[in-house]
């Protein structure tokens, strides 16, 4: 009887003690250094980034030695399922439980949401898989770096290269959302210095699945270039429609946004088109060496530019942590801002202080027809290199309101 009476009291005091005693995390000097790779693991971007991004990040950690400042390095793989709300919540959860860096962030809406969280908690986010220039423009902040490509770089690379080769009349297939409109304005600006202009560029309403009417209109307009400034399934649908109406034989086709993973899925569809990307696995010996090691870890698949960027960014960050002696984001930003570097992924690179855009060389490539492909996954041929100081929006034109 007496003991039974005591039990509730014991329980209550246990709960009370638990609430009053603060949760003491492991002391900072032995807690692991955590990198959270937040990306799309199973949806439309899983080939571009996905599991391969985690593999690449882990490769960088292993190559660095697995430890920094005497602490082990842990890589968390987080699936944001292409939802900005989930990305935001997961980022909060990861940062709250000790993550020091959010990496990859493929999908612009998710990247912008996580950038906002990073600013809130004063920890770093490095974006490799999103296209939006808002990350270094209206939504820039001290704790976010935009590492790999953006829509400006893609448009200027392809636009300038093709216009310079004498293709002056352009016809645009533009989807009516932020990405499409940004691509159109960037392409227009890129081709203008070489005498190029868009003779027509309708913005297609969202949800367009049938591009036949636009392809027929393009055929009637007789441009020299057909520019497909959309992404994902829209690009495939418009390419298929373009081929149906014979446009690939009449004009040059340029695709705004295309990656190795897209061509791996549908090589015949994209053959003959010209694109820009930040890296190609077969571009030189160093790139190929990385690609071979990656293929051994990922079933023979070759790394995409985003996956290579994840390795590169992780390695650069770990080096910064070691040099600064801490994972404190403010100190790392102070160390990185303005710093120049060069690795197998980023050539002539710099962590630009003005707007946290990491600049590096970009490459214009053609997608080869099947007959010219010499080994599996060797879909591209580099036709032009855009130097780092010309590839991205100039610092003087940045719309970032720098508050740091």
């Amino acid at each position, binding site marked *: 009887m007496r003991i039974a009476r005591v039990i509730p009291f014991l329980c209550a005091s246990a*709960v009370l003690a*638990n*609430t009053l*005693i*603060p*949760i003491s995390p492991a002391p900072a000097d032995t807690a692991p250094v955590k990198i959270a790779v937040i990306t799309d693991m*199973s949806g439309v971007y899983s080939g571009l980034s996905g599991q391969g991004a985690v593999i690449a990040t882990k490769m960088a950690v292993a190559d660095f030695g697995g430890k920094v400042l005497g602490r082990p390095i842990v890589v968390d793989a987080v*699936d944001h*399922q292409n*939802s*900005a*709300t*989930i990305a*935001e*919540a997961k980022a*909060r*959860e990861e*940062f*709250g*439980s000790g993550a020091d860096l959010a990496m990859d962030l493929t999908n*612009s*809406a998710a990247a*912008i*949401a996580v*950038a*906002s*969280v990073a*600013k*809130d*908690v004063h920890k770093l986010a490095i974006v490799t898989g999103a296209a*939006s220039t*808002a990350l270094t423009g209206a*939504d820039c902040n001290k704790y976010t770096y935009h590492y790999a490509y953006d829509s400006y770089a893609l448009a200027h690379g392809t636009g300038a290269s093709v216009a310079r080769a004498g293709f002056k009349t352009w016809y645009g297939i533009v989807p*009516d*959302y*932020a*990405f499409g409109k940004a691509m159109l304005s960037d392409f227009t600006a890129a081709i203008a210095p070489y005498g190029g202009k868009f003779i027509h560029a309708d913005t297609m*309403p*969202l949800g367009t699945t049938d591009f036949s009417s636009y392809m027929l209109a393009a055929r009637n307009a007789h441009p020299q270039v057909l520019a497909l400034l959309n992404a994902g399934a829209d690009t495939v649908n418009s390419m298929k429609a373009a081929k149906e109406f014979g446009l690939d034989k009449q004009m040059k086709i340029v695709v705004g946004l295309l990656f190795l993973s897209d061509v791996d899925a549908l090589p015949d569809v994209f053959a003959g088109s010209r694109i820009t990307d930040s890296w190609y696995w077969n571009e030189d010996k160093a790139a190929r060496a990385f690609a071979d090691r990656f293929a051994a870890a990922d079933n023979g698949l070759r790394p995409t530019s985003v996956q290579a960027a994840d390795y590169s960014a992780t390695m650069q960050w770990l080096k910064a942590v070691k040099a600064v002696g801490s994972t404190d984001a403010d100190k790392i930003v102070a160390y990185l801002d303005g710093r120049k570097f060069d690795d197998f992924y980023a050539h002539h690179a710099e962590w630009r202080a003005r707007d946290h855009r990491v600049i590096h060389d970009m490459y214009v490539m053609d997608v080869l027809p099947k007959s010219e492909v010499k080994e599996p996954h060797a879909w591209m041929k580099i036709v032009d290199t855009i130097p780092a100081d010309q590839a991205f929006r100039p610092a003087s034109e940045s719309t970032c309101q720098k508050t740091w």
Partner: protein
Amino acid sequence: MTRSVSIGLALALIAILIAVPWIGIPLPPLFGEPLRSPGSLSLLAVCFVFGALAVSYDLLFGYTGLLSFGHALYFAMGVYATAIALERWHWSLIPTLLFVVALCVVVPAIVGAICLRTHDVAFAMVTLAFAQAGSIVVLQNPFGLTGGEEGLPLSTQSLPAIFAGVANSRNLYWLALLLLIFTYAVARMLVGSRAGRVWQAIRENERRVATVGLNTYLFKLGAFVCSSVLASLAGIVYVFIEGGATSEITTANFTLALLVMVVLGGVGTLWGAVLGGMLYEYLDFRLVVLSSASGLQSLPPILRVPLSEPLFVLGVLFILLVLFVPGGLAGAFRRLSSLSTRTTTLTGGQ
């Protein structure tokens, strides 16, 4: 269950929920971190918001029988109107709230007046059309207001100080809890009122209600506006928790998710809707994490791979639910409790 017992239980539950930010117990695998950490509090807060949203939809669909495919529109209106007023127009908090509530009374009144001229399937389709229109407007980013598909994050100056920053997660948690309690109380009151009884009668047999002399159109419009206002309030709280607006809440899929929440919890019982809303949102977030749990990894690939896909699991669960537990969680609970009373009468009455 007697009335005083259920009130007592409800109060005890509310007390526990209020106290959660002080409870440091870790609860794996339910939560990744201890209950009072910002991550868990933020997840709970979102679950509360969706519970409130599900209640608002239950009012429309469960009680009045109006199958609307466009309810997400009013939630989205609450979200975007708040975000735009705070971030783009730099209004302060009180004018923003007044504006949003006013907007979310006027717009549903107009849209409802148009949609309610139709019935059943046509009504569902017309509400869907309006929701699609809203989604397109948001994505096209007119005048740079909505941020299009990239979303509209709130800068720290725009957020009210007590809600800004990770340190104030517990304030957001309590705000969301307050929203849920308020929405539930208002819904309960409405359902118990004369209007509420007319709504339920309309659900059963609208023609009969009309022959009695009541203007069913006006009553349905009232249900439409009330549920939309409650949805927009949930939207306001959601913006504070998320720190901004994102375009995925404008999609038709989102309204379908609302329907799933209400049916999951049990149509026509308000607390069922709360449960359904909270459970659905919780599963949406945590199923991905649970699927990488070690127990699952040991299964053979043919089982492991599909089970690691949260949407697949959700779909299967839902099929099983509709087939075997059509009354939702509330229905299952009621059947269980009626089972226990039956056994007591059987054994007790000798």
